[in-house]
């Protein structure tokens, strides 16, 4: 066979294969039927695929490379790393512009609608062809980073069914209706912190009641559900996890919960489900690992890092530093990434170990994240060097002259909020700030409300003041509201923020 004949045969075989494939899709897949009434179970399955809560059978491919598939390995942050449809096209299919790429809207009406430049998709088959082969309207290739998906017949049906309800009233945002937005708060109503939990609850309820009395936000009342988080961190994580298990009955967000570090099960569920925990009141050891988990207060790790930088600024850059912390892998891991060179991390459990550490590193400035008698021992060591402490761990600043050297105390919020207020009224201040943060982000989201809009609105809060002098800032990378402020015991008037 000569070359030309061979090419013709090859082309004919390819054409026949393509036609067969098209016929098989048309005959075998009910998804290609043009149906306005999608089966709900089917489109809910499609929504799970769209939102990355269910893996595609085969990993999507871009440039010949298999991309991370949603929740494939079950780790906490898989869906953030995945290429689930909603990452680019948006939770409501509205599309967006990012990284120099214009991502088109893919609500069913948008897909079918023709524009001056291109035809609309004529059928579900055309839409599926775009998803699977990367060839879109007018036979034009879709732009990267749109991957190609090798969908099973069931996935085709489910995705097409979901695209037909995506962004419509048939696919409501959990917790949101035209007249109300449901939120929850997880608080310790029993156990040793019950008094704090009750105070936070009362404050949140009063704050939202006042807002509702003024007509709510965009005509929506804020309906608060209080959930008992039990006596400890583990029970609080479990109670929050239970909220996530409510599916379509989930609240829109959780506000002002008293929760420190979420346990692994809660992290995984949060990463997969996108429920926002807004202005959480606990103080985590490490910075929040998830954009939807935000705190009012900076993490212990962040406070130590800033405190070390402040000590260097006050006492001289480049001096060696000894960071004393309680025992435990979590502390060592949390503090293990201090950026400055010349830092020594050391765990201390008792007075003898502390004395040995102070003898071993006599020339070092000290950051002490210890409290009680150990801190008193550090202060009494009569060292000429600088000492840094965290108010959250060590209590308030000592009287001037309590130590031989200078002491810088880091506060996890503006100094005045901790000054006049006792412990009880401090919870009121914090709970009120949490409610204000939620309402402000809700107001900035606009009337059409979904979780991504809300998240973006929250990230626009820059020096937002729920009360005069109480400024909060959130960004995509900064997941706590308050700045760290410092008190220097040798100069009580020099309190300033960083």
């Amino acid at each position, binding site marked *: 066979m000569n070359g030309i004949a061979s090419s013709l045969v090859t082309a004919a075989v390819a054409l026949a294969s393509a036609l067969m494939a098209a016929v098989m899709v048309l005959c075998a897949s009910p998804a290609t039927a043009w149906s306005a009434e999608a089966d709900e179970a089917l489109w809910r399955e499609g929504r799970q695929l769209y939102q990355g809560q269910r893996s595609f059978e085969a990993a999507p491919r871009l440039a010949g490379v298999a*991309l991370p598939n949603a929740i494939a390995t079950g780790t906490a*942050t898989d869906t953030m790393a995945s290429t689930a449809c909603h990452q680019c096209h948006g939770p409501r299919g509205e599309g967006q512009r990012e990284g120099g790429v214009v991502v088109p809207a893919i609500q069913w009406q948008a897909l079918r609608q023709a524009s001056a430049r291109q035809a609309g998709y004529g059928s579900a088959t055309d839409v599926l062809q775009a998803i699977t082969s990367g060839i879109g309207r007018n036979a034009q290739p879709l732009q990267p980073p749109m991957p190609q998906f090798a969908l099973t017949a069931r996935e085709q049906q489910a995705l097409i069914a979901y695209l037909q309800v995506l962004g419509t009233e048939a696919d409501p945002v959990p917790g949101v209706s035209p007249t109300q937005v449901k939120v929850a708060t997880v608080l310790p109503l029993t156990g040793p912190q019950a008094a704090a939990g009750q105070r936070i609850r009362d404050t949140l309820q009063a704050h939202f009641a006042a807002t509702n009395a003024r007509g709510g936000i965009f005509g929506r009342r804020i309906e608060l559900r209080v959930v008992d988080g039990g006596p400890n961190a583990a029970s609080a994580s479990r109670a929050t996890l239970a909220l996530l298990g409510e599916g379509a009955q989930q609240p829109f967000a959780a506000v002002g919960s008293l929760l420190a570090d979420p346990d692994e099960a809660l992290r995984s569920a949060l990463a997969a489900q996108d429920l926002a925990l807004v202005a959480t009141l606990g103080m985590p050891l490490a910075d929040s690992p998830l954009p939807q988990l935000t705190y009012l207060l900076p993490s212990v790790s962040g406070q130590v890092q800033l405190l070390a930088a402040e000590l260097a600024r006050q006492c001289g850059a480049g001096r060696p530093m000894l960071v004393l912390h309680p025992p435990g892998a979590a502390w060592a891991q949390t503090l293990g*990434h201090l950026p400055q060179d010349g830092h020594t991390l050391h765990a201390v459990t008792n007075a003898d170990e502390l004395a040995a550490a102070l003898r071993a590193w006599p020339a070092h400035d000290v950051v002490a994240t210890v409290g009680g008698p150990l801190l008193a021992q550090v202060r009494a060591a009569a060292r000429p060097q600088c000492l840094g402490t965290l108010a959250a761990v060590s209590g308030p600043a000592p009287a001037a002259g309590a130590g031989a050297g200078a002491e810088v105390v880091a506060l996890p919020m503006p100094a005045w909020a901790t000054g006049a207020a006792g412990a009880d009224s401090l919870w009121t201040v914090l709970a009120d700030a949490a409610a204000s943060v939620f309402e402000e982000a809700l107001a900035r989201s606009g009337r059409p409300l979904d979780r991504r809009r809300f998240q973006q609105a929250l990230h626009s809060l820059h020096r937002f003041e729920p009360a005069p002098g109480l400024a909060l800032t959130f960004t995509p990378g900064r997941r706590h509201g308050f700045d760290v402020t410092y008190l220097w015991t040798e100069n009580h008037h020099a309190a300033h923020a960083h």
Partner: protein
Amino acid sequence: MTSRRHVLAQLLCGSAPLAWPAAARALSWLATPAVGEALLVDHDGRARHLADLLQTPRPVAVSFFYTGCATVCPPQTAVLMACCRQWKSRPALRELLMLSISVDPLNDGPSQLRAYGQRFGLPLGEAQGWLLLSGAPREVQRALTAFDVPTRPDAHPSLLWLGDPARGRWTRTSALNPPQLNGDLFEALRQ
């Protein structure tokens, strides 16, 4: 061995749509970008003079991203990971050093960079061949300008610079091209 012209023709006409067509038009190699004294910070919080990182006999690839990016960056990172894996089988590229520079220095500090690396399972470290870099906005801007990258996070292109710093030979291409194609181009650059 694939010729350089063939590689460029593939980049121009290949099935992969080019997000950065300027790459295909580059018929002569570019000089080392003038990064000046740009002082960046890596994912471990270590200060890094970009010029020092480019003083190396290793082949260097430079890409751009930010940790809050949900659209282009995840697939781009996946493709670059595939590049790192596949290019190790090519002798000329075995010692690859990948530098990924954040275009959002206001929000990306070392902890955000580390979290991003963990999220994607990147082999971080100079020995492992991948550094994530950010820094003071002015310093990052200096670096981005040298690589012809806009400093607005929402406008950053899927641009990938490939360089042989020891010989002062560089080119640029789309980070979303198939690893095989960009590998051929990189190999041609190293010849």
